[in-house]
Structure formats: structure tokens, C-alpha cells
């Protein structure tokens, strides 16, 4: 199957700053693809290149088989976009914006529009200036999802949504995938990407760092565990896959490679576990741990780009 999106060696520079540095990204048709990276890694820049809003400086880009710079208008009939920062016209209502963006894209499904308004509990009669950030985000989501298109480009779409709406959002994305649509979901929240995406590309300082399914990336993840036991914990340090151990008699705090989790739990049982909390790693931890010292310079660069 031809990929819905493919970039190779994609370079985008702003003055002397290299925002995208030979980025490779492949999104297969019909998958939900996670696009993970810390703030300022180049996610938004990539999506703007995919939309033909920014012109690439080098490399090859195909979206739905076309060149997003040359064929922007033709391609845009077949895709929908939710910007990361939703700025709308203050004196138009949410309903008007949804209809307008749908019409400019080439039409939207009235029934779907009503159903989405209902599900996201969005009042379409308010003027955009009166919406909170979360509600502006909902306007953009409804406007995008109400169109029946092949590809959805979502740039940190759930920022500002409350947990209930996050659930609705995830449901809708799953329905799109079941309907055979392609979704590129940029995010800096690992849990959201893990819940929704078939495959993930991790972007760091404008470069694709890793691509694969979550299982393939399992080696990147480590679980933090805090445990309290009845008997003093004598040793954990020797176990394979256990890191950053600190033990205070019957209390221990450590992190463990996900692949080794089961073996470590089996050992803990011997100490008579009273309580145990485990938390998935955050993206920031993952980056710090996996890419170590490089991250700081990368972040500094990334901030420069973000501030432009």
C-alpha cells in the first residue's frame, strides 16, 4: 500500500536555525500514527510543511500521492487539519466557523456535525471570543471531524480538553481508524499516543529518532515503582533491568525496564508487599533517560525555533 504521508531527508530552516534536519516520516494509509516529541522538536513545523504552508528547503515530501506545496488546494479537499493553537475570528460563532471551514474544504456531513456537537458538548451559538481554550479546541475538532476525508492531521489536538472530552476524542479517533481513515496525531503526551496509535515516530530536534509500533519501542520505556513491604527489602540492585534504586528498610523506589517487570514483581512478593504504585514514564523522562545529555542542547535549539 502506498503511504499516506512520506518524507525523506526533509530540511526546513528559519534563518540560521535548522528546524527540521533530514526528517524521515512515513504514515501508512489507514493507520493512526503518533508523532511524538517534546515541545519545540519540530512537530508543528513538519505539519505545516505537509500542509504546504511552509516550503521545504530540501528533501522529498508526498501527501496523498501529491506535492503539498504545488498541489495544496487539490490535496486539501482530501484532508482535514486541527491546528495546535486555535485562533479564530472573535465575532463569529463556533457553529459558523465549523460550517465555514467545512464548506471551504468542500462540504461537511450535517448529521455528523450535529452528532459531534452533542458528543463534545459544544455550544455552537457562542461567539469565538467567549470560548475557553478547550472550547476553541473543540470547535476545531468538530470542524475537522465533521468532514469525511481520507487524512486527518491533528497537532496536539487534546491540549486544553478535560479528561471526559479526552475520552470522547479518543473514541472518535478510533472510529476514524475503523472507517479506514488515516490519522497523524502529534502529541507530547505518551499515554495518549500509546492509547491510540498503531505506530509512532519520535522526533527530536528536527530529526526522526525512532519509528515503530509501541511494542517495538518497548525498550524505550521504563516503569517507576514505589513499593512498601512488611519485611525489610534486602536487595534489588542485583536484578537485571532495575535502575535508580533507593531503599529505606521497608520502602523502595526504583525504575524497571518494562520487559523485566514480571520477574521483579515476583521477587518483591517475597517481602510481603503492602502497597505498590507504578507509573508509566513521561515522555520527558523517556527522553532524558534514552538520549541522555544530548537532550539539553537539543532543547535549547528547539526553543529557539519555537520562539520564532
Amino acid at each position, binding site marked *: 500500500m502506498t503511504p499516506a504521508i512520506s518524507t525523506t531527508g526533509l530540511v526546513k530552516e528559519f534563518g540560521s536555525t535548522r528546524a527540521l534536519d533530514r526528517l524521515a516520516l512515513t504514515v501508512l494509509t489507514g493507520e493512526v500514527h503518533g508523532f511524538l516529541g517534546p515541545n519545540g522538536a519540530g512537530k*508543528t513545523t513538519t505539519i*505545516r510543511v505537509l*500542509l*504546504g*504552508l*511552509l*516550503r521545504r528547503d530540501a528533501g522529498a515530501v508526498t501527501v496523498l500521492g501529491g506535492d503539498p506545496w504545488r498541489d*495544496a*488546494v*487539490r490535496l*486539501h*479537499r482530501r*484532508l*482535514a*487539519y486541527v*491546528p495546535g*493553537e*486555535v*485562533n*479564530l*475570528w*472573535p*465575532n*463569529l*460563532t463556533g*457553529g*459558523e*466557523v*465549523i*460550517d*465555514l*471551514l467545512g*464548506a*471551504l*474544504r*468542500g462540504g461537511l456531513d450535517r448529521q455528523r456535525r450535529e452528532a459531534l456537537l452533542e458528543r463534545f458538548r459544544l455550544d*455552537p*451559538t*457562542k*461567539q469565538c*471570543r*467567549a470560548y475557553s481554550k478547550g472550547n476553541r479546541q473543540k470547535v*476545531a475538532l468538530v*470542524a475537522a471531524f465533521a468532514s469525511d476525508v481520507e487524512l486527518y*492531521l491533528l497537532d496536539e489536538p487534546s491540549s486544553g480538553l478535560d479528561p471526559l472530552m479526552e475520552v470522547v476524542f479518543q473514541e472518535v479517533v478510533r472510529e476514524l481508524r475503523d472507517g479506514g481513515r488515516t490519522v497523524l496525531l502529534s502529541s507530547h503526551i505518551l499515554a495518549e499516543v500509546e492509547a491510540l496509535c498503531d505506530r509512532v515516530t519520535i522526533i527530536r530536534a528536527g530529526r526522526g529518532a525512532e519509528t515503530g509500533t509501541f511494542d517495538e519501542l518497548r525498550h524505550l520505556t521504563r516503569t517507576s515503582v514505589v513499593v512498601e513491604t512488611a519485611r525489610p527489602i534486602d536487595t534489588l540492585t542485583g536484578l537485571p533491568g532495575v535502575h535508580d534504586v533507593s531503599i529505606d528498610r521497608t520502602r523502595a523506589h526504583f525504575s524497571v525496564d518494562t520487559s523485566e517487570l514480571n520477574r521483579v514483581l515476583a521477587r518483591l512478593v517475597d517481602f510481603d508487599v503492602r502497597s505498590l504504585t507504578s507509573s508509566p514514564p513521561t515522555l520527558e523522562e523517556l527522553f532524558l533517560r534514552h538520549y541522555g545529555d544530548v537532550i539539553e542542547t537539543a532543547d535549547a535549539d528547539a526553543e529557539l*525555533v*519555537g*520562539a*520564532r
Partner: protein
Amino acid sequence: MTALTGTATLARLALRRDRFRLSAYVLGLATLWAGMLAAESAQTHQALVEETEIFVRTPAVRIFGVASGVSVGATVLIRGYVVLAVLAALMSALAVVRHTRQNEETGRSELVGAAVVGRYAALAAAIIVTVGADIALAAALGLAGVVTGQPAAGSFVTGASVGAFGAVFAGVAAVTVQLSSTTRGASGLAAAALGLAFLVSGVGNMLGSADASGLRLVSAWPAWLSPMGWGQQMRPFGGDHWWPLVLSAAAFGALVCAAGALAARRDVGRGILAERRGAAEAASGLLSPLGLVARLQRGALLAWAVGMLGFGLVFGAILDEVAGSSSATTDWYVRMGGSDVIVDAYRASTIQMAGMAAAIYVIQMLLRMRAEEADGPLEPILATAVSRPRWMISHLLNAALGSLALLLVFAISMGLTAGSIVGDVPAQLRDIVVAALVQLPAILVIAGVVVAVTALLPRWAGAVSWTLMIVFILLGPMFGAATLQLPEWTQSLSPFTHIPKVPGTDVTAIPVVAPIAIAAALAAAGLTWFRRRNVALPA
């Protein structure tokens, strides 16, 4: 007084944020006033008398000012008072809105409100800083008068009358920010109150009568219902009354108390007036780039049309007065209007001023393209099946048609009043409408410039467009190269210079076709370049 805790700190914050803006207002207005006085000082006594007489004799013109006798100060202030007072009121109202409602809308006040800050502190700080600026303005205007050689008493009464009007509008804004939940709404309500104040005092002056000398207007009672009337009735340079200040002070006090009472009755971030609901679905007219831009420009176009209608009616109504006068003013009309026949020269120069106003409208509207790009609403539009040229052309068409509509509104209203005074409405309408239509090519050149600059130098679009507009006006027929002591050829750089001076002269093809061709070339260059560059979206 825990409700006022933190006022001093917030006042310092407001002063720090506004130090340049408020200083610029105060210095700018004082300079403007000094310039007006200096220019008028060059006039002969006879010219001053004639100018004053027009403002006493013609009811329509009395809307713009109250005559209080003949002297340099008194005569300039007839026209000058409304200008100074309106700018002072805008300075004050916008400052109060900026430090109260705008902070609430952006969420800054939540940050501040969580600190040790009393309920009324933000409002009190805004009022203190604004009234401080009004007092500084009063002093600066007074000094400007003294420096340009006017009597000290009149100079400082002028300052006080303008400053007091500003302070009243600080009070008005203190109330409107309680009423509306948005910055735009609060400023809009204050602006509406300003318009009303002008209208009420204007009606009072229209209904007034001349005193025995024929050089002083006695206003009718409605003038006393408006704070603008109170300022005018202080009669700077023509009696120098201080006592109407009491009325302004009382109104200010009442407004501030009302604002305090309203503030106690509402939540932070909310207004007393309920938010208006809008349409749940878009009307079909909105569903295209052209329709969207038309909708976004609608409010501004309506406001401009009301202004053009008013000025058109008034300028038409005084046709006779101008034709009858014989002084330095007529020389100016003759030069700008390009005809020895004063009626033709007057009509041509008035229409040219309307054309410049319409050009300003076009610049304002087209610079919104830059704002849409920099603020972000352009991004979702260009992510749909709308091409960049189509988006730009939608803006261009709307702005051009809007300026055409404004010119027609002005021409028709001027033609109607002028025609009814000289007794030939169809002829006046025909002449003036044709004169208005020939302004359009020059306006299109300016539109082309803005489009090209927005495409080529997005970050500098506003600065370059406005600078060019000012240069075009200075080099145009309104001033003329001779006045500015520039070589003759520089005049031809301004598109305004090439407008045929209808109805005094005939229309020929080249002055119409050539600017349109230039405008088309500029717009085409802009569209091409915008198609090729990165969109400069917010990070």
C-alpha cells in the same frame, strides 16, 4: 480600606506599561495644538473674522464647534476643540479598558487578583493613572498655548476643558468595562457614548443663535446635557469660565461611584450585560472566502459609511457659504480643486479629501490580511481548499468595493444637500458622483501597494503602508510641493496628484487607465510573491 489594597503597586504597573503610549498622546496632542495655533497666527484678522462667521452663521457647521469671538486662540479652538476632546477621550477610555477589562479578558487579572490585591484596586489604579494623564495633558496644552504666544488664562482653560472631558470618559470607560465582558465591547460602548456626547452638544449648537456681534454662538439647552458641551461652554479665549468644571467633576465622581457599585455586583471575567448568542449555523453567504471577509469587514464599513454620510451632508450644505466667502480659505480650495470657479474648486477638493479617507479605509482593511497571518486565523483557512491568491483577492475585492461604496455614500449625500441648496439636485449628484468615481484609480494604486508590501515584507506591512500613505498625502494636491519646499517633480510620485479635478476639468483616459494598470501590476506581483513564500504563522 482593604478593598483598595495594592492600588499603588498596580498603578505603578499600569504606568510602567503605558509610559510610552500615554506620553505619546500627551506630547502629540500638545504639539498638534501648538501647530494649529502657529498656523492660525499667520492669518489676517479679516480671515479670522470670516472663518468665525461661517461657524456662527451656518447651522450645519456649528456641529463641529462653538464660536466664542475672534482671536487666534478662539478661532482655532472652534474646530480644534472637538479634535482635542475626542482624542483625549479616546486616550482615557482606552487606557482604563486596557488596565481593567483587557487584563480580565487575557487572564492577567487572575494572576494579580490571587495576590494581596483588593477588589477595587485594579479599577482604582486604572483611574488614577488615566486621570493623571489627563491632568498632564491639561498642563501640556496650557503650556503649548503660552509658548505659541496666546493669553495664559485662555491657554490653561483650554487645557482644563480638554483634560476634564478626558477624565469624564475615564469614568465612562470605568462603567462600560463593568457592563461588557470583552475589551472590544467595553471600548465600543465607550466610543458610542463619545459619539452621543458629540451629537448632543452638536445639536445644542445647531439650535443655538448668534449674539449681537455675529461672532459668538449662544448654544441652546441640549449643549448642557453633554460633557462636550460643558467643555465648550468654558469658552477658552472668549470669557474663560472655570465653573463648568464642576459639572465635569460631578459627572466623573458619579460615574466612578457607579462603576464601583457595578464592580461589586459581578464576578471577575464577567460583565453585567449577558453575552449575546449568535447563529448556530452559518448563513450561506458566509461560506466562501469572499463572504467571510465581507462579514469581517461589515462592522468597520458600516461605521465608516455613517461617518461619510454625515460629512457628505454637511459639506454639501455649506456649498453656498464657501462660494460666498473670499479669503485665504478660497485660495486653498482653488489650488487643491484646480479651478478658478470657487464652486467647482470646492467640490473637487472636498471629494479629494473623501477619496483620501476612502484610501485610509482600504489600507486599514487590507492590513487585516497581515493580522490574520500573524495572529493565526489564516492557518485553518489555508489548510482548506482555498488557494492563497483566492484568499488575497477576497480581501482586495472587499476592500475595493467597500471604498467605492463609501465614496458613493459621500457623493450622494453631498450631492443631495448641495443640490437642494442651489436648487438642482440631479446636476449636483451627477457632477459629484463622477468626481467621486475618478478617485477610485488612485485608491486602487494604494491597495496594490498594501497587497505587494504584505506579500513581500509581511513584518513591515503596517509601517511601510502608512508611511507611504502619509508621503502620498504630503506630496498630493492638499499641500503641494511648493508648500513643502520640494522640487516640483516630487508631486508626481503621489497617485493623488494625477486624479482629474472633476468637475472643474474633464476626465481623460490616461489618468484613469494608467493608475489601474499600475495597481493591477502591484497586486499581481503581490499575489505571485505570496504564493511563493512561507506563511509567517505564530509559533
